[in-house]
């Protein structure tokens, strides 16, 4: 009986991005079109070859028909939007691959265009926001002074620290490693701003014990896109294909309590990543030890640490000691967020992580891991989450 799996049926054959700018305020549609056109060109294709679009949630850039029209596409055979908040990125690629593998479309574009300056306008009528209203963010969290995701991260760190003894210096090791990668990346917003552990100790607090260097960049707009096609078609592609070895999503335990409400779970130190990870490694048929580089979604250092545990690189609770001693620096056992991530490259909600995973497989990263074969890419926690394993063949 043939195995029903997505493993290596598809590949990412094109990547594209706009410049990342901290200055407002570029046009949303233009950002999306630019990134998509660059990805399509990188794939050696034209917009007429594209027949599918998978969109990332809370996106005001355009809807599918507007994109089809403005790109000069012929038709749209497949269309989807992933409503996982920051957890959507890898799932867009997984969904595109599923469509291609099932024969619904040939070449699918996945993209994320982000403009924070009008972000709230697009949260109002969005599937993700309907959850926020129904679960009571405005009723049970805001009135007590819980104002933003930063406070969720602060609460998660205190819970992790109380249970496992995790320290702020351990968070600092993550922040420093990721900043070092950004300092090597000419596209990164913080390319010219080095960070040492000493600097991290003196950084301004945003919430709890988390500093401004522990949480994502915010003032930036930009867009990223990838093109997904079949492994068969990828054989003739312009660039080295990044084969999609595995894709997975998960909500995690107590699924009614997610994202900001996750802190209401009995043990919020365990994330949805653990559930996605089980599916991911099973599909890939490899173990965490095989992973050469991990583009881990870094909206906050505490979330990187939690994912290192939940993707199986160490025991639960030992994320703090894992990241010490240079283990997550380039040259270490598990380099992470090698383009600088959300903390220091750009806050494109994990889509820049997908592009960097592809670069590592191609051998074109500005912080290249030698002979990288298996790249893990993750999307955010504590939202519903998703992940990919990309492979060089």
């Amino acid at each position: 009986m043939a195995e029903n799996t997505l493993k290596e049926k598809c590949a990412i054959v094109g990547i594209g991005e706009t410049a990342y700018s901290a200055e407002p305020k570029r046009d949303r549609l233009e950002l999306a079109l630019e990134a998509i056109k660059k990805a399509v060109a990188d794939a050696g294709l034209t917009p007429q070859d594209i027949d599918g679009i998978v969109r990332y949630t809370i996106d005001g850039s355009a809807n599918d028909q507007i994109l089809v029209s403005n790109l000069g596409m012929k038709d749209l055979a497949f269309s989807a939007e992933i409503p996982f908040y920051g957890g959507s990125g890898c799932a867009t690629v997984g969904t595109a691959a599923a469509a291609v593998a099932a024969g619904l479309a040939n070449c699918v574009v996945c993209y994320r265009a982000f403009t924070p300056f009008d972000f709230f306008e697009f949260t109002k009528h969005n599937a993700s926001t309907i959850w926020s209203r129904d679960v009571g963010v405005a009723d049970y969290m805001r009135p007590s002074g819980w104002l933003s995701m930063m406070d969720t991260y602060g609460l998660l760190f205190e819970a992790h620290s109380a249970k496992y003894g995790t320290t702020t210096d351990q968070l600092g090791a993550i922040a420093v490693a990721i900043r070092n990668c950004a300092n090597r990346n000419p596209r990164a917003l913080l390319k010219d701003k080095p960070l040492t552990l000493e600097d991290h100790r003196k950084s301004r607090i945003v919430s709890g014990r988390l500093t401004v260097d522990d949480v994502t960049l915010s003032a930036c707009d930009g867009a990223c896109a990838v093109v997904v096609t079949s492994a068969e078609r990828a054989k003739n592609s312009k660039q080295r294909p990044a084969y999609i070895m595995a894709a997975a999503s998960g909500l995690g335990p107590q699924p009614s309590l997610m994202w900001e409400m996750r802190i209401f779970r009995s043990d919020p130190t365990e994330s949805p990543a653990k559930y996605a990870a089980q599916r991911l490694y099973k599909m890939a048929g490899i173990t965490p030890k095989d992973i050469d580089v991990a583009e881990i979604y870094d909206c906050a250092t505490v979330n990187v640490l939690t994912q290192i545990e939940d993707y199986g690189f160490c025991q639960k609770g030992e994320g703090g000691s894992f990241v010490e001693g240079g283990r997550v620096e380039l040259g270490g056992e598990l380099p992470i967020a090698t383009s600088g991530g959300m903390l220091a490259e750009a806050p494109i909600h994990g889509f820049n992580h997908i592009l960097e995973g592809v670069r590592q497989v191609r051998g074109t990263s500005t912080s290249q891991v030698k002979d990288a074969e298996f790249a893990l890419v993750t999307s955010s926690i504590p939202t519903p989450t998703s992940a990919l394993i990309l492979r060089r063949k």
Partner: protein
Amino acid sequence: MMTEYKKPLPRLYARYAKEFYEGCKRHELLIQKCKGCGKYRFPPQLGCPWCGSTESEWAKASGNGKVFSFTVIPHFEARAVPMASWPEDGYPINVVIVELPDAGGVHIASSMIDCKPEDIKVGMSVKAVFEDITEQMSLLKFRPA
């Protein structure tokens, strides 16, 4: 006549938020309990996340709790994606997650009063109190027990 309340008020968007805050107005901490399996849940919702039953009742919790986690927001932080608004004189904000052992150990979010930020500790015992913030609305808060 109370002075104008400038912090975010509960919006009563969520199902059962109205009943929860009616309880707060009476200075009662009401936690939803499933009639199918007896488990408590917070926030309240229609279906039980464990057994799926849509039959539930309100149980009065004692208000005794333990701090499960906390975060102190020291000052306003400008972000490009804006945070909810909070008056400048309302900082620092002591946000706490309290575990309620006599309501199935559910976690609830609130703020800590009568306590310096540096004195908040995970595991400390706290007691629910209710602050009448407007004529229609009372908010659940916690103070050291």
